[in-house]
């Protein structure tokens, strides 16, 4: 165990290194570049024994990772924003081919106008690709989640890819103390990758061939559905193992913060969750019953866990750092849908905050809490969706 001060990008590269990834195919994109640079350095110095492919696009990066994984190598890539979108077609392919690839994605806004700062639209718009999705709050969590993801994805009952989101600049370029676990312990936690059906000339298999309507297509898809259903229970087990091995405890798909007796709860994901928790502390000191939920995982969506966590809450504010135009924030939609049909259904409102990297301060969050309490007091939600602090 070594403690070092490092950025989220370096932490992601360490996650890939400690996981002993064997094939890295990556394309540089701001603000992810440092991940691929650091990995290149690890490989050049002989600290990581991997094939490093300087591919000509993110699309090819993902294609190469899928193929490498099908041959039986542990594959890693990292991207961001437009790069993730360029991969979109192959993201579907990766899950359809059941390849347990792990990817770091630096969450960045989409153009136009150009913006290299944080937003979650890039990953949210990959919602239906069949990838497991994590959003990290700290650099430590970035590193640890990559280790957890390989263990989760390579599980024989799961065999799906995962992406770990880290907020552009707030995590990618901000330094924090990170504990780098011992390689020996990581090796114990995460043994070598053994592909279930590695491509081998002694036992020739065809992977991904045509399926007629009367054949197996729906069954292949049903298997992905089943695998996704197993992710959250398995995650709890893996995180328990992780705690025993490394002494750091993660809380499954949700992190609950002062929710037990809270009247109003704000839900958020990513690094700004820290600001929300800070605001909760401030308000709690004044006796205000507020709480926060950090959504660590967006796919599979932790419906059951959320409903349980919100069962005594009167008002829920959902902060989205993305927007589904023509509708509402995607997290809001999903949370609302999860609550539908349950015995208890709190009032719920959507706040769009901090997109394109605009700062979220405790003042912003206080204002949102105030608005929630106002709605609660008046027994009326003033607006279904509110874009906070918009200048037009």
């Amino acid at each position, binding site marked *: 165990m070594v403690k070092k001060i490092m950025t989220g990008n370096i932490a992601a590269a360490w996650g890939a290194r400690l996981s002993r990834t064997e094939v890295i*195919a990556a394309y540089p994109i701001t603000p992810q570049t440092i991940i691929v640079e650091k990995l290149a350095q690890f490989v050049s110095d002989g600290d990581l024994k991997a094939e490093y492919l300087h*591919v*000509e696009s993110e699309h*090819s990066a993902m*294609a190469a990772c899928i193929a490498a994984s099908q041959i039986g*190598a542990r594959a890693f890539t990292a991207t961001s924003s437009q790069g993730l979108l360029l991969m979109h*077609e192959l993201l579907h392919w990766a899950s359809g081919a059941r390849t347990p690839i792990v990817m770091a994605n630096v969450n960045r806004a989409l153009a136009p106008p150009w913006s290299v700062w944080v937003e979650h639209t890039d990953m949210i718009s990959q919602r239906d690709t069949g990838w497991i999705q994590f959003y990290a709050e700290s650099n430590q969590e970035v590193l640890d989640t990559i280790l957890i993801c390989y263990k989760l994805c390579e599980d024989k009952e799961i065999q799906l890819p995962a992406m770990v989101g880290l907020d552009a600049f707030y995590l990618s370029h901000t330094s924090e103390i990170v504990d780098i676990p011992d390689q020996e312990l990581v090796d114990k936690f995460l043994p070598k990758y053994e592909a279930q059906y590695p491509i*081998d*000339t002694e036992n020739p298999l065809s992977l991904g061939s045509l399926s007629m309507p009367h054949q197996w297509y729906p069954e292949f898809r049903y298997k992905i559905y089943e695998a996704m259903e197993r992710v959250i229970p398995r995650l709890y087990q893996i995180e328990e193992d992780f705690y025993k091995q490394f002494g750091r405890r993660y809380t499954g798909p949700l992190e609950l913060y002062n929710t037990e007796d809270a009247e109003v709860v704000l839900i958020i994901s990513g690094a700004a969750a820290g600001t929300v928790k800070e605001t909760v502390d401030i308000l709690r000191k004044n006796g205000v019953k507020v709480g926060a939920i950090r959504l660590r995982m967006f796919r599979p969506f932790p419906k059951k866990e959320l409903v349980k966590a919100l069962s005594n809450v009167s008002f829920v504010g959902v902060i989205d750092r993305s927007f589904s135009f023509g509708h509402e924030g995607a997290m809001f939609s999903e949370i609302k849908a999860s609550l539908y049909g349950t015995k208890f259904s709190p009032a719920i409102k959507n706040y769009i905050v901090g997109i394109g990297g605009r700062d979220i301060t405790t003042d912003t969050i206080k204002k949102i809490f105030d608005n929630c309490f106002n709605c609660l007091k008046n027994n009326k939600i003033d607006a279904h969706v509110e874009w906070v602090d918009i200048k037009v």
Partner: protein
Amino acid sequence: MKRAGIPTEEFIYSGHTACPGCGAMLVSRYLLKVLGKNTIMNIPACCFAAIPGTFPETCLGIPLLYNAFETTAATASGVEAALKIKGRKEKINVVGFAGDGGTADIGIQALSGAIERGHDIIYVCYDNEAYMNTGMQTSSLTPMGASTTTNPVGKKGGWRTRNKKNMIDIVAAHDIPYAATVNPSYPMDFIKKIEKAKEVNGPVYIHAYSVCPTGWRYQPELGLEIGRLATETGIFPLYEFEDGKYKISYKKKTKQVIEYYKLQGRFRHLSEDFINEVQTKIDKEWQKLLLKEECSNR
């Protein structure tokens, strides 16, 4: 075992779903005869994505990885990298097998990247000169004069008037160690070139002439004859690019383009003037190729 220089072992078994007289079947058959059992093939969206059969059946005796349309070369790169790190590359040929659209259009970026990176892969383009799996739409390798469903003959013309890309020159510009054109109508030449390709350490590009009776509109039994005409007219010259040098492997350009055209429905609409124009162009290209050979060997 070899008979008349051609290995007798087969890796394509009966039960495939190709059209009668399919050129891609012959191309893949000769290719695999030479490359043998220790071969992993990558196939994008193309006729060959359907030909080997539907899951769980296959008529191929080697492992196949299917991949997205534009990713053949990137996928082959990933296969090669993984085999290398696993210590298995020495024994295994990694093949990308794609049509003309997957190679010269949507897949050209990945192909360029893979060659530039120097992966030890054999990339084979079976060129049937249009998007045949989707029903004969124009690709950038559809030849001048041909009609397709997206270059239909109409009252104001409409057939293809652009010339096809020269893929060998494109890959040659990457300083590729070995590239060659092959034609199943010349099996010995075909076999010899793949045998060479197998020994190359680094990327190889093979451009294979691949007749298509349904798309080119001719009777299937004429396929081999049309193939021979393609080379004898200079429309599809047989040559190699090796260590920076061009080498023509069949130098008899004895026939006129009209002989090739008149056997195929896709050229039926052409006027004499247009055919003469094409003839001039082909003659020029042939002279250029002779010069390339001469200059690069000087």
